[in-house]
């Protein structure tokens, strides 16, 4: 089978785009897990709520949807803080099953709540840059996806700066590394839990906005599949490792795209888990995970 280079690059590009959404989701899951040691199964629903918040703001204001990222991210940050405070904190430290069933319950709550507020019909919006593209030979780069990749890089750089260059980041990392020691050194770990959850939700919200501006359709039930993939990426990259989430997300995006092209779309989801199984057999802690996580 002869493959045109332009086609190959185009497929790689679609993989990078898909990887961006996965990276933002997986990084949020990892941040929450790293600090709280809790897996939020309703994380995909935060992506969905982010998409609806962007859509609502777009419908109300008509502003460029990329600008609405500035509004959606804080809304989801506050929403995440509220969810952590009202739902997770009361059960934190009790049996792990409580946390698991709570987050599973939240999936249904968020889905039905969104259906009640926004209706269960699918929605989509058009980006103002929808018709613009950069063409290099037979390689066509729609402008929206170039912006999405750039925005994702910007968010990740900002997150790294927050975690590495600020006192808050230091406190979050300390809580993540050793909760008791962090507490003994005067860090309010409960506040760190709220902030980590809020940041995770904000990243999911950003992914929701990028999902919407790429012209993807969305409905109250759209979060489940991306969430499952985000969890797989987290395990692949290593629990609690943000670089692992980034590399894992990119790898998944490209692997899915390659599988769709070579084996057909029916293999898209399967290939992700085949890769996961292979990596775990070779390295049970994931690519960047440490023993004991």
């Amino acid at each position, binding site marked *: 089978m002869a493959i045109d280079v332009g086609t190959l690059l185009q497929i790689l590009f679609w993989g990078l785009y898909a990887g961006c959404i996965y990276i933002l989701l997986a990084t949020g899951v990892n941040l929450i897990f790293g600090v709280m040691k809790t897996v939020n199964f309703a994380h995909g629903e935060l992506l969905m709520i982010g998409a609806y918040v962007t859509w609502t703001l777009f419908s109300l204001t008509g502003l460029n949807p990329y600008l609405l990222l500035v509004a959606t991210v804080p809304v989801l940050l506050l929403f995440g803080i509220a969810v952590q405070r009202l739902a997770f904190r009361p*059960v934190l430290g009790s049996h792990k099953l409580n946390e698991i069933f709570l987050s599973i319950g939240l999936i249904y709550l968020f889905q039905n709540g969104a259906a009640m507020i926004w209706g269960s019909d699918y929605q*989509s919006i058009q980006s103002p840059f929808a018709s613009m593209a950069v063409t290099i030979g037979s390689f066509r780069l*729609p402008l929206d996806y170039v912006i999405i990749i750039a925005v994702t890089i910007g968010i990740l750089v900002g997150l790294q700066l927050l975690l590495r260059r600020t006192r808050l980041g230091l406190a979050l990392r300390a809580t993540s590394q050793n909760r008791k020691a962090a507490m003994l050194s005067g860090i309010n770990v409960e506040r760190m839990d709220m902030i980590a959850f809020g940041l995770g939700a904000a990243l999911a919200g950003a992914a929701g906005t990028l999902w919407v501006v790429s*012209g993807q359709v969305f409905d109250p039930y759209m979060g489940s599949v991306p969430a499952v993939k985000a969890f797989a990426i987290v395990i692949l990259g290593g629990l609690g490792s943000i670089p692992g989430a980034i590399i894992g997300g990119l790898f998944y995006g490209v692997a899915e795209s390659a599988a769709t*092209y070579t084996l057909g*779309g029916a293999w898209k989801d399967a290939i992700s888990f085949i890769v996961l199984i292979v990596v775990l057999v070779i390295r049970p802690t994931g690519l960047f995970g440490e023993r004991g996580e």
Partner: protein
Amino acid sequence: MRTVLIAAIVGLLVVSACLAGCTQTQASAGGLKLGVVASMTGPASTTGKDVWQSAQLAADEINARGGVFVKSLGKNVTIQLVQGDDESTREGGIKAVTKMITDDKVDVLTGGFSSAVVTAHESIVADHGVPYIITGASSSTVTRRTDINTSTMFHHAPITDASASQTTIFVDEVMRPAINAKFGRPADTPLRMAVIYQDSPFGKGALDAIQSTIAAKGLKIQVVANETFKMGETDYRTTLTSVKAKGPDVVYPIAFLNEEVPMLTQARRDVGLNTIFLAVECVDDPDYYKGLGQYGDYSIIESRFSAYAVPKGSISPNVGKYQKDYAARFNASPGMMGAATYEGVYIAAAALEKAGTTDQAALLSAIGSVQVPEMVESMKNSTISFGNQYHESQFNLFMEQLHWDPATQTLRPKIVWPAALKETEFQIPDWYRPGSV
């Protein structure tokens, strides 16, 4: 404080859980209890709402006229609807149908959308021997399967084989000559078709039907690509890039509404696949036109009922009235699945009158032999009946071409085939690029 918060969360969870999977009863007690299987929640809820509202419209029309005369009772009785939400899932369908049969004691069932969901709950219906007028589920297996007793199932929707076959014939009869003529190709040049199909019995059945139609009728169509996708997929960019590389003259997706809209949008907007897309008949819904917008310009859709096109012939006044009444009552345009369910309620009413009793065995026999004049969908011999071996009604399908009106910012269809029903000629847009030969 903590107890209050936990109690509040538990309360909200209970309320949200109750929102799904509940059944709802309309109208007063007595008369024919008609269970309507509709996807009121979940991904297919747009269609589910249309199904339920259309059933309400039909039942209210019948009841407003005094109901149905039942000979054994010597009086008219009303149609009482019972809503069963299948939650767009197999499990939800089983739960809803079981409740309607065992708790609500429905006499007849109608509705049902997805083939996967319907085939899952059919065994419950078969076990209880309840007549079921299935108005969705395009897979032929719903009445042709042999693992359960399907004698109580009546299929009032075109099966995949018939609809895929009709579209393939249209491509050969209308599109191929037009494209060959426009681009100066010899008249017998085969048309290059790419098929992108859902990885499900629905998608595979349609692909088989396309290929067998081409082979059986010797059509000059070459299938240059057949690509699969998972049900509910939203990202088709890689698949479309692969299809584009094969140089198709036409792309035929076997996809649901929520799949075809992003597929076609991504094809035109992101991948630059400037070809004509076809669509299966089950996507002809107002949301399809709204979702596609300008990207649907010049695309083709197979149909049996459209919210925005009225085929010529005897059903024209009925279609116009139905569209008007539906819009007036629900402030929305009706969809195809709703139209079939609207007829499903009338079929049940006609069967009740013919049976002259609410006895289930008599109703079953009456549905099997009833002859209802065509209503809002064009039927073979202008009649709705389930006379054939598999209890399938026979539709006259037509093809529409969609046109974007920049002034009104709307996408609307015009019927282009067959000749007896068409409103205008099939057109090839200036931006169209034929596949490489």
